[in-house]
């Protein structure tokens, strides 16, 4: 008892993380290995196009696979416990252990079937594109102290604007130009009401979502359906193959044979991460999000900076919205963002309000989503609904602090009035 209380919060978090991993590994060994009723071969298929080295497919026995990967997870868990004892980081071990458990799960779930591995990862990346854009919009807003629940609305507005403009002009470039502006317009409402009128930002974000859903549904039924040929038949962006990088085995076709939106996403993530932690703007943004009074006292114009960042966030989310229409299917569909904005919010929180953490969380959620899709086609022992719940459950576990408490920027959601009560 006394020993536990001597640990620092970080150590406690590591301890809990390491032991959770150990527990999960055992559970996986028992659940996927020992309790597996009948064993059958699992085939991992790697799609081959023009990579340098050909990995074709890999078949292994499902029970052996589950045993093997669970044992690997156990080893990583023990390694993590040693790391914790030596007071070192356990991130690498957790990631490896998590991956091993996932593979053990796959061996169990896809027993006797084929898993298109490249397709699984490729689909996962595509499904996480809007999540990453949305989460980046969240980072920009919330790191500077404005809660952004309106990510969903910003994505939807971007999708609508891109789809309609690309259709009217029959030009995807115009769609890509207009989408960020639409997102920024939604952000403008958020910025004006949250910063100028000091309205509760959660309520505001919620109402903005209702407004955007109502508007796009209304216009969809009134214009896009009756005049489909002119208003809602936009072209689609074609993928651009990056010369050398796309030839890297496995990773190449996944990451470097994508549309311009995905490349812009890499760029935006890199820029936001670097500038948030390495530039003056980033320092100021974080200061304004954590302690606006202190920031003000050194001459930072708190509300101006917040205003600008919220608009930037709208630009980013709007571009992400374009992915739904010009980036994927062309035509706009009613409420086509389907709650992706809220999963992006979940990713932001799960990633502890840091850009790279949010990207990792978004990729994880995208992967879970795609895995669910593939497994529901091939048939699986777990109902697909429970797999769809996974991101939400993970987020609740994250905010309740089971594996380390996540903390929002201190001034997130609190309007700043000079000389006010805050």
């Amino acid at each position, binding site marked *: 008892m006394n020993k536990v209380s001597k640990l620092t919060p970080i150590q406690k978090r590591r301890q809990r993380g390491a032991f959770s991993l150990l527990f999960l590994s055992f559970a996986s060994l028992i659940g996927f290995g020992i309790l597996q009723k009948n064993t059958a071969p699992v085939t991992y298929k790697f799609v081959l196009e023009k990579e340098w080295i050909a990995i074709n497919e890999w078949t292994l026995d499902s029970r052996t696979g589950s045993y093997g990967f669970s044992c690997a997870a156990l080893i990583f868990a023990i390694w993590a416990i040693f790391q914790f004892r030596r007071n070192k980081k356990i991130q690498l071990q957790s990631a490896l252990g998590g991956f091993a458990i996932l593979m053990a799960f796959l061996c169990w779930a896809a027993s006797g079937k084929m898993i298109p591995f490249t397709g699984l990862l490729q689909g996962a990346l595509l499904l996480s594109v809007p999540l990453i854009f949305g989460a980046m919009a969240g980072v920009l807003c919330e790191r500077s102290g404005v809660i952004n629940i309106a990510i969903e609305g910003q994505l939807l507005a971007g999708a609508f604007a891109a789809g309609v403009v690309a259709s009217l002009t029959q030009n995807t470039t115009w769609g890509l130009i207009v989408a960020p502006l639409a997102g920024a317009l939604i952000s403008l409402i958020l910025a004006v009401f949250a910063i100028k009128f000091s*309205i509760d930002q959660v309520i505001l974000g919620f109402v903005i979502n209702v407004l955007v859903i109502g508007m796009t549904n*209304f216009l969809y039924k*009134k214009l896009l359906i009756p005049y489909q040929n002119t208003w809602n038949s936009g072209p689609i962006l074609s993928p651009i193959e990056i010369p050398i990088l796309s030839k890297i085995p496995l990773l190449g076709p996944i990451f470097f044979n994508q549309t311009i939106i995905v490349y812009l996403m890499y760029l935006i993530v890199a820029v936001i991460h670097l500038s948030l932690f390495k530039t003056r703007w980033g320092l100021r943004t974080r200061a304004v999000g954590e302690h606006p009074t202190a920031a003000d006292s050194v001459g930072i114009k708190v509300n101006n900076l917040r205003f600008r960042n919220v608009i930037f966030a709208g630009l980013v989310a709007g571009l992400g919205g374009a992915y739904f229409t010009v980036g994927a299917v062309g035509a706009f569909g009613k409420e086509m963002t389907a709650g992706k904005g*809220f999963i992006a919010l979940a990713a932001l929180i799960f990633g502890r309000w840091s850009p790279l953490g949010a990207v990792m969380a978004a990729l994880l959620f995208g992967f879970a989503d795609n895995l669910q899709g593939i497994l529901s086609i091939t048939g699986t022992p777990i109902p697909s609904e429970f797999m769809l719940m996974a991101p939400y459950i993970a*987020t609740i576990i994250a905010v*309740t*602090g089971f594996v380390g408490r996540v903390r*929002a920027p201190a001034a997130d959601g609190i309007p700043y009035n000079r000389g006010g009560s805050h």
Partner: protein
Amino acid sequence: MNKFKKYIEETSKSIALPLLAFFLAILSGGLLIAFSDPKIYKLWKSPLEFLGTGFASAGHAYLALIQGSIFDGNLTSKNFLLGFYPLSETFVVAAPLILTGLSVTLAFRAGLFNIGAQGQFIFGAIGASYVGFHYNLPPVIHALAAILGAIVLAGLWGGLVGFLKARTGAHEVIVTIMLNYISVYFLLWLLSTQTFLRKGRQDPIAPPVNENARLPKLFGMDYRINLGIFIALGVAYLIHILLSRTTWGFQFRSVGANTLAAKTAGMSVPFVMTSVMVICGALAGLGGAVQVMGSEYALTAGVAGSFGFDAITVALLGRAKPLGTVLAALLFGALRAGGLTMQANTTTPIDIVLVIQALVVLFIAAPAMVRAIFKLKNVKSGTDMAAKGWNG
């Protein structure tokens, strides 16, 4: 007498803002209806005709809205009273909306933002449906048992939020957003299980609720209006009493107004948070029960519609007061019911209702803006929407 005069004055002040906001929202919605039709732009050359056509189409839409929510002369050919069928529909929609709205309202008063009414509604509907179709009980008892099932299930689901907030500090908004999605998927899964699958059906619909567990209709089989609306009004009165006359309600309001002061005064904040969310869950769940037992008679994937989300706009328009919530729910119930007729009779999609709802709340939230537009001075401002942070 003086007191009465003062009361009137106070009321008119606090009601002025919602009314003006509603007026502005209707106006903006009208403009959207009028000028979203491409045909009107062919009349560009004669401004008079251009404007006339625009106003006519907005007018037709709103007329259909009233026809669908209050009184429709076309239905009176057989029986004059049948003309009020739309009004009955308004009450049918309003009943669950009042209950979910109260759920959000009560949470607001305790300083919590319950976005989770949607999920709690779903769990209430599940509870009422299961008790309703799985058991065979005598008339009144069966209905009560089904309501109890709904309240218990939804109360636990709502209480979970309060418990997590009290124990770990997890923000209720984040938790309820996530729980809403979990509820939807849980419902979808449930409807695919053997227990909840209706015999001979493949689509997600549960067996029908037994006759004994249905809420009685008030004015015969021609109208769908049922006991649900009176349940809702009764509960609204109870919540009013709870908040204004009981120690418990005082504790809720104290925690909502100033958590620290409430704690210093010796109130148990964790207990208040958990119990408030249990009641909120039960309220929304009761809404689900009323929907399943009063008008739908079966659990379906879309049973919750958008009752839980509309509830938030209802509570905001009602300014987090029970009476206000009831009035706002009746208004939005009318918009919803009328919207269907509007969509069928004119080319105006029902989604304009969403736009109006959102705009009303936006205008209310920004009293400074409404005041500026109407050049008013004595309008009570929306202090009930003062901002709090994620960590607060």
